């Protein structure tokens, strides 16, 4: 499949994080820590992220980068010892008040109303996320009961529609989770996530546990459903290559910080942050010239003892003294389009595939854009 930015989904030009009034989910300056006794681990450190209605935003990073923590924390689903220590999460769906709802201020009763109806989640492991003792129809049905108040035949009709939506035979309503195949279970999770028409669906590594063929099917299903139902997707994965195919915009996290954000096209063609470059260089393209895989040397950092300044310094080949005292705010990337932000002001975007050119000063973009296919 040709890696083409999915901005064509709703036809709009991928913009800069949409102006505050338009984003359906706006995370601003969010910080989350884990407290163990007296020690605090910063799992998410002053992160901004926004989703426009119907948009697909990918969130990429290694394990421990904080991407799941960010998403679950924004919904306030994290358990102690996690604590949200700052920021705001504003939801502006069409069903809530115009000025939006500040999720961090809600009590449990209001949150319960928001949950699933407005923001739903597809968890990574369907085998673990489905209740093993309930039939599919009961697990799908209870969320219908909690949020909509349908009559019995309406409910049954809706359940059947949901399974049709994801391509599962209707008789599976009576099955238990262990009676379904892995792919079917994940589809049930997706159907469940869409059961009450949310405007935002968070997908936390939804295909990681599946084999490649099934992965493709599920992804195609998600894209198609999104076209039909127009919900926004926050797609969390460690697999950047996947995001290049289905996301409108991509955000990259490292050690709890946001290090780069931009459209899929910008990230693919002009990756700015050294970490993003490393990620892109880590997987081969099916087409194009053969090259040696680079990967990223070193290991993910220990969040309990982060060095000051940029956390990527130990593994970054361009690292220099100024990096250790840098302010980790993301800034617009010179020479790229609007909406492309990076936390590294020293490295300018070059095409990642084929020509590595470390620069410490702003240099003009050199190589002509290589063919993407």
């Amino acid at each position, binding site marked *: 499949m040709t890696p083409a930015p999915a901005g064509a989904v709703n036809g709009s030009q991928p913009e800069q994080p949409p102006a505050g009034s338009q984003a359906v989910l706006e995370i601003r300056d969010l910080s989350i820590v884990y407290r163990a006794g007296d020690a605090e681990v910063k799992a998410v450190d002053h992160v901004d992220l926004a989703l426009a209605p119907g948009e697909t935003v990918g969130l990429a990073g290694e394990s421990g980068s904080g991407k799941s923590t960010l998403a679950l924390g924004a*919904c306030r*689903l994290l*358990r102690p010892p996690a604590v949200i220590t700052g920021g705001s999460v504003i939801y502006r769906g069409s069903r809530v008040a115009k000025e939006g709802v500040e999720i961090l201020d809600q009590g449990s009763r209001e*949150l*319960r*109303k*928001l*949950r*699933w*109806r407005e923001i*739903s*989640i597809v*968890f990574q*492991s369907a085998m*673990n*996320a*489905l*209740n*093993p*003792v*309930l039939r599919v129809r009961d697990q799908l049905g*209870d*969320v219908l009961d*909690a*949020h909509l108040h349908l009559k019995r035949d309406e409910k049954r009709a809706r359940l059947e529609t949901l399974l049709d939506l994801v391509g599962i035979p209707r008789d599976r309503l009576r099955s*238990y989770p*262990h*009676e379904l195949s892995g792919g079917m279970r994940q589809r049930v999770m997706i159907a*469940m996530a869409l059961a009450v028409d949310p405007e935002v669906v968070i997908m936390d590594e939804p295909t990681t546990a599946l084999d490649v063929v099934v992965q493709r099917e599920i992804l195609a299903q998600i894209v198609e459903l999104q076209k039909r139902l127009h919900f926004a997707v926050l797609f969390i994965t460690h697999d950047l290559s996947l995001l290049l195919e289905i996301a409108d915009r991509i955000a990259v996290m490292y050690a709890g910080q946001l290090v780069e954000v931009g459209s899929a096209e910008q990230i693919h063609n002009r990756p700015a942050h050294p970490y993003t470059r490393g990620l892109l260089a880590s997987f081969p393209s099916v087409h194009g010239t053969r090259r040696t895989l680079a990967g990223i040397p070193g290991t993910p950092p220990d969040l309990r003892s982060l060095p000051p300044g940029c956390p990527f310094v130990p593994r970054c080949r361009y690292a220099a003294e100024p990096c250790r005292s840098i302010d980790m705010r993301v800034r617009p990337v010179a020479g790229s389009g609007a909406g492309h932000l990076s936390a590294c002001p020293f490295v300018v975007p070059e095409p990642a595939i084929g020509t590595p050119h470390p620069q410490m000063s702003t240099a003009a973009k050199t190589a002509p854009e290589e063919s993407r296919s």
Partner: protein
Amino acid sequence: MQFIIRRLGFYAVAAWAAVTVNFFIPRVLPGTPVEAMLAQHPQLTAAAVRALDIEFGVGRQGSLVHQYGAYLSQLFSGNLGVSTSAYPATVTSVLGTTIPWTLMLVGLATIVSFVLGTLLGILAGWRRGGRFDQLLPAFTFLQATPYFFLALVAIQLFSNDWHLFPGYGGYTLGDHIGFNGAFISSALRHGILPAATIIVTSMAGWMLQMRNVMITTIGEDYVLAAEAKGLSTRRVMFTYAARNAILPNIAGFALAIGFVVAGALVMEIVFSYPGVGYTLYNAVTQDDFPVMQGIFLAISGAVLLACLLADVIYVIADPRTRTRAAY
């Protein structure tokens, strides 16, 4: 279904084991009970002596295999021998009058303590760090106290000092046994203290086990998913967490039932409650070996039945067992 059939097969083997152990006890251990019995009760009929021979192998007539066969056939014809202390009553009749008392007391008390303990365990596991956790040391103490000690204290307080409940027997002596009001009411009154003691001591154990499994279950992804779905607290707690947490407890019932039986036995002895335990105790003190071994068989059978029941309930509760071939 396959699961149940496998379990039935197992219980058949266990029953056979119990019967065989029962066969070997008098033949393996020193002493010749039958001679002692004969000496004490010279009025035993020839038929009774023959039955005792078969059961206890006195005289060692025939090979061991031959004796075993005779023993089994005697057993299957319902002949458990004759009680030497309650002569000429048969062991079967002795059992017949005592088992109902035990069933009532132990059966009801076990069910109540399981239900109460499980409910409390659900709450305790849900509200970690709350009031229940502060009561944990008290419950631990209860679980560790010798069962009968609590019974003795209870008798002392409730019966002797405060005269609230009778501390002895199953019913007021002189009452006519049957379905009449006076008997039923006195039976109930006599049953309260023993039942309460059983409940209090075993409830602690069920509660602690349920609490621990509940805490582990709450950490599962599907509970988090239930929260994310915006379901009511009650539904998350019961249908998602508790419903799964209870499974290991049902499975562990077979392990626990040994202790239930032990506790009930001792309780009956302390209260002189006319059930199986008290009868066993009397049989021991009077060297009534036929009754002793008959009671052992009866209790084994009851335990196996209870375990089978627990297995059936488990199959109903856990849908995963219905498709898997092996458990």
